[in-house]
């Protein structure tokens, strides 16, 4: 067997496995099992993206698609566990299921038709992005696309994250507004989790900064680095080395909006200097992008961690 055939077999195996896991997640009887299926699906999908030569997408899928979204769903399934039996006992409404099936089939069919209708080779702007990347001072054309050519998309993604957090916070009970998110965690101060957190935190921070800087020339960047920071913060909270901050703290609000705000400020400055919204004057492109990315990694980290932490559940005085 030559290397091409092995690669093809591997791709087929990943594709079929991903489909099988997707079916498992949809058919699972409990919410918890479905979430486990969803996370496994995310990992498999990351492998598929990697095999397609898109390591940037693979990293994001593994960190945000599988990891962070999976964690959010895991939390949700824990909250819903008490109502699971009642929900399962409800009479099934075949009409609703039929409508859902039709809607899903229409979307999937439309997407499939669109992909199949593409001429071969598919139209692409990739050569343009690769040719234009040196002007931004970035060696990774994906980073150049996200931070320069399509910077508006990236800006809006950051705004969406903040909006999602506003949505989560809006579920707060009135008397707990301004309190601390999540329940109080139990942890043995001499236990393995605390040991693990103490050991991993410094290593993880170095890794997050590494991801940020390596993102200029290789797969990585502020989003992936921010996800690592968020995970570390949550680990410290779970190990009770830190507590979730009360959500009315000034510094917290500041870092939530710092990323999008700096991005917008840079965009407006581009207008003032005549290079257009979110355009960068050429010799300054790399330092400006780096500055935005440094603020962004903190903002993304804080926002993602608070998204997972959920709405406030205890008054702000409720610390240890």
């Amino acid at each position, binding site marked *: 067997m030559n290397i091409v055939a092995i690669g093809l077999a591997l791709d087929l195996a990943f594709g079929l496995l991903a489909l099988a896991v997707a079916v498992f997640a949809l058919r699972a009887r409990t919410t918890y099992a479905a979430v486990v299926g969803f996370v496994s699906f995310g990992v498999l999908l990351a492998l598929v993206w990697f095999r397609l030569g898109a390591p940037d997408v693979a990293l994001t899928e593994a960190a945000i698609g599988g990891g962070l979204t999976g964690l959010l769903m895991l939390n949700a399934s824990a909250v819903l566990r008490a109502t699971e039996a009642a929900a399962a006992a409800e009479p099934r409404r075949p009409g609703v299921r039929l409508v859902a099936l039709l809607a899903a089939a229409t979307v999937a069919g439309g997407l499939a038709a669109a992909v199949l209708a593409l001429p071969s080779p598919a139209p692409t702007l990739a050569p343009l992005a690769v040719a234009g990347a040196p002007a931004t001072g970035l060696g990774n054309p994906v980073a150049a696309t996200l931070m320069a050519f399509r910077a508006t998309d990236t800006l809006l993604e950051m705004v969406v994250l903040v909006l999602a957090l506003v949505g989560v916070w809006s579920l707060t009970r009135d008397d707990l507004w301004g309190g601390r998110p999540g329940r109080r965690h139990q942890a043995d101060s001499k236990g*393995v*989790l605390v*040991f*693990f957190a103490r*050991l*991993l935190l410094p*290593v993880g921070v170095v890794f997050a900064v590494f991801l940020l800087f390596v993102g200029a020339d290789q797969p990585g960047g502020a989003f992936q680095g921010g996800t690592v920071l968020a995970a570390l913060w949550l680990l410290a909270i779970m190990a009770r080395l830190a507590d979730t901050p009360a959500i009315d703290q000034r510094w917290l609000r500041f870092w939530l909006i710092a990323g999008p705000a700096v991005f917008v400020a840079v965009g407006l400055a581009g207008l003032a200097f005549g290079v257009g919204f979110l355009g960068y004057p050429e010799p300054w492109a790399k330092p400006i992008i780096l500055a935005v990315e440094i603020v962004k990694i903190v903002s993304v980290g804080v926002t993602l961690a608070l998204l997972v932490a959920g709405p406030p559940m205890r008054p702000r005085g409720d610390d240890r």
Partner: protein
Amino acid sequence: MTPLQILSAVLIGAGVFFFVAGTVGLLRFPDTLTRLHALTKADNLGIGLIVLGLLPFAANALVALKLILIWILVLLASSTVSQLAGFAARREGRQR
């Protein structure tokens, strides 16, 4: 095949064996603690042997160091998680 390639193939093959064995154990063993026992063999020996097998073919010393770092981090994470899962299983007294 050079001797180095043969050594590498043997090490990676052994690593894959431990992964398969660990997975079979995870699926077949009767309760949480024995399943954890099977799983940690896959994590420790499986990844360790595969990293050892890949080391001779690392492009440079930096890549080799990263491979070893991955191994150490996986060891650390899997041993912590299996401890926590073991504690949780004992606390709930539910040894399914």
